């Protein structure tokens, strides 16, 4: 029986999780002027169009998770 933990697709998801955590750690401890998540979010929120698209994407994700998933 294949367990959830050994599925190849799941392993790739774990790789992305580790990569994201590693990158956030680099951002937290690096003294170099890197672009952090706050700057990325502020960039997205800095115009009406991008802000509206972000809110629309947020709503679609909510609809999918709470009205389509179990």
């Amino acid at each position: 029986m294949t367990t959830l933990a050994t599925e190849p697709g799941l392993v790739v998801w774990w790789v992305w999780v580790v990569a994201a955590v590693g990158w956030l750690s680099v951002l937290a401890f690096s003294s170099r002027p890197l672009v952090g998540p706050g700057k990325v979010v502020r960039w997205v929120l800095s115009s009406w169009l991008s802000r509206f698209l972000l809110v629309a994407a947020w709503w679609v994700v909510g609809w999918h998770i709470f009205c389509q998933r179990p």
Partner: protein
Amino acid sequence: MAALLSAAAIWLSTWQGELSRDSTGARRSVEVIGAAAIVAMVALGWRRRPGSSRAWAAGTVRVTGGWRDQPNARLISLLVWCLLIAGVIGWDLFSFLVQSPSFPTLSTLIGHVSRHPIGRGLLFGSWLVVGVYAVAGCRSAPRR
């Protein structure tokens, strides 16, 4: 005001946790919250309105086009962000197209959490927090 909103969000998340995806309450609440988010975004951002969309797009194109002139630290971090975001979206799309239990989509993984009332409630609370940040993020911008 913040305490009242927090209490309302906790009550809403607890209530939502008990609902199923097919229930009218789940659908109506997500619809109403979405409409309220759009209204609140416009109302809160009206006087502190962000820059024009055209200027935003032009600035983005200018920065992307002049990538050679960017400082190394900035260039590397932008590349890593692009890689992470494109990688997650690409892998999710690939898993969706393959349609195999061996390649679960992000949606399937979230479904393992949202099928339990506590997980559904916590996810709903997190979704609300992200929405509030996206809607009210303009409050940090200077008033024009």
